[in-house]
């Protein structure tokens, strides 16, 4: 019976392969099929990357952009960078921002995934609902949060006021003070992106064999032991992958920070992507210097990527 069921499929497959073989040799067919994505990849990724590196060794102003020119300055842009306090500040802010946000995302995402892994009424609905922040367009999310943060009519101040925690006079201008602005950006980034963690951790939780928990119960493990010895050890690998990926995403994040605070107040939320924007596209339009910052970011993220790939290779070997 299996043979009968398989044979029609086989014929179709053979026939399709047969057509390919008569028109184009196998070796070429592969290249032809790869070509469109290869072209897109080259145009949209490799070319800008190489152009960015090229620009970082040149002095390029807005007129040079049009002509494609620029004067070679060697490592000048990088030397400028190393002596620029703003760059070091932004590097620190970026690292802090990415580190805090990713940690919180993993803790919250894992906790929510564990909750959603339990069976309760309306679970499917709540699982869908959790994805909501991740699927909303960034600009819409930011507009809503700016309303919430608003000093005069924002909901957050209103709640604090209703609870008697602040007086009307002390209304907090959340995004206008360095510390609260940084916290505010962290909170929005956490809210917007934690569902990513939930989805992946939940998927991993669902394939942990139930037997393991039962065996552990019989072996005498309590709920906490079962979580540490089974759940955590089972999801450890995906948590590492998530941490690396989210670090790359958050380190690179431009839109949330830019739309909420433009890197302010008093550079409290000035991350590297914002600094690239300010240097290259705002103010003095120093494309060479901006590119130099971008190239440094690229180098840092490449190192993270290498850790990621090394980890994936190790996983494959196992």
């Amino acid at each position, binding site marked *: 019976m299996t043979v009968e069921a398989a044979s029609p499929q086989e014929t179709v497959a053979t026939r399709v392969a047969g057509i390919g073989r008569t028109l184009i040799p196998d070796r070429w067919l592969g290249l032809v099929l790869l070509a469109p994505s290869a072209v897109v990849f080259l145009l949209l990724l490799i070319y800008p990357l190489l152009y960015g590196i090229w620009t970082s060794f040149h002095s390029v102003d807005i007129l040079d952009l049009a002509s494609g020119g620029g004067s070679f300055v060697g490592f000048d842009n990088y030397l400028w960078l190393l002596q620029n306090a703003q760059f070091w500040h932004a590097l620190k802010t970026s690292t802090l921002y990415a580190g805090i946000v990713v940690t919180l995302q993993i803790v919250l995402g894992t906790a929510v995934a564990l909750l959603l892994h339990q069976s309760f009424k309306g679970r499917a609905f709540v699982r869908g609902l959790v994805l909501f922040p991740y699927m909303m367009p960034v600009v819409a999310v930011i507009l809503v949060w700016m309303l919430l943060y608003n000093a005069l009519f924002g909901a957050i101040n209103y709640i604090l006021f209703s609870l008697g925690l602040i007086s009307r006079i002390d209304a907090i201008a959340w995004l206008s003070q360095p510390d609260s602005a940084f916290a505010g950006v962290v909170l929005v980034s956490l809210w917007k992106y934690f569902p990513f963690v939930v989805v992946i951790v939940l998927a991993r939780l669902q394939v942990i064999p139930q*037997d*393991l928990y*039962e*065996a*552990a*119960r*019989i*072996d*005498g493990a309590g709920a906490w032991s079962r979580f540490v010895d089974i759940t955590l050890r*089972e999801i450890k690998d995906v948590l590492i992958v998530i941490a690396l990926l989210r670090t790359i995403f958050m380190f690179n994040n431009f839109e949330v920070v830019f739309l909420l605070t433009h890197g302010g107040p008093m550079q409290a939320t000035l991350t590297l992507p914002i600094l690239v924007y300010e240097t290259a596209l705002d103010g003095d339009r120093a494309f060479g210097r901006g590119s130099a910052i971008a190239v440094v970011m690229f180098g840092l993220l490449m190192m993270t990527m290498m850790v990621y790939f090394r980890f994936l290779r190790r996983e494959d070997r196992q």
Partner: protein
Amino acid sequence: MARVRFDKLRKVFGRDVVAVAGLDFEIADGSFVSLVGPSGCGKSTALRMIAGLEEPTSGRLLFDDRDVTGLEPRDRDIAMVFQSYALYPHMSVRENLEYGLRKRRVPAAERDQRVARIAAMLHIEPFLERKPRQLSGGQRQRVALGRALIRDPEVFLLDEPLSNLDAKLRVHMRAELATLHARVGTTMIYVTHDQLEAMTLSDRIVVMSQGVVQQIGPPEEVYARPANRFVAEFIGTPSMNLMAGELDEEGGKARFRRNGVTVPLPDSLTAAADARQVLLGIRPEDIRITADSGEATIPAQVAVAELAGAEKYIYLDVAGMQIIARTDADSPVRGGDRVGLHFRPDRLHLFDGTSDEAKAIRAG
């Protein structure tokens, strides 16, 4: 070690899915008992209730005289071997073995000692530092057994532990299990759908179907005197031949009749017999095939003769029904032959009616 007593133990899933309709029997201390039946018969649920992984809907479970019905698995002093082995994938074999001891705060020195003893007993010393995924199926199986044995539990539960092994290894591990039980002497409760495993390993077999116990007894008894049609068909390969027909009487002697074929019934069966629809059962090895179709034999035609190594299975057509006889491998019978059958009178089974629950009619 402990005696396990089921006191009207019942499990209903949801509103009306009866998994176990009420178990009411006792497993003797130190014995090896198999729960056997087709999938969905409730045997696994019964085992999981003993483990404490499933809460009974009603009834009680007692180890010796201790009521363990509401106890957590860890408080029952049981160990279980899972069908999937359920070895902790991130832990080495050694860590797997001693996990239960760690959770019970057994001191390190004693843990090492026990691991060494169990590893030697099960021949797994060379793999102690390996992870489960680096082991073969048979080695994993040993580790799973070791993890259960190391705790020296009162009751040892095994849920289809051999079904993930290939045929050859399964036979080998079956023998090892028997040896192991003889050596440790712990009460072992074994769930399987394989009646052969149940027959070869057990002191007693509990045959279950649809949540109900069909028969409890030593393997020999369950095989030789099945209580009803279900047990008769389930135990033994090839299955017992069952022929539907009716009882009637001639000259004060009861006989079985179907499509003109008659089988005289021994006196021991006639006493309990009335005229009614019955099933006549005969095991393949209790049929003798003769070349001549004389008076005392049942005429049949051979469909196929199948050689299975040491023996032959002869597929026969008797009055429009197919039955199977088991003969020596050198039997000259061939497809198409017309033969006479002789049923061993003392090995005939008679069932009251034709349903699955049809009770065996016993002498007296």
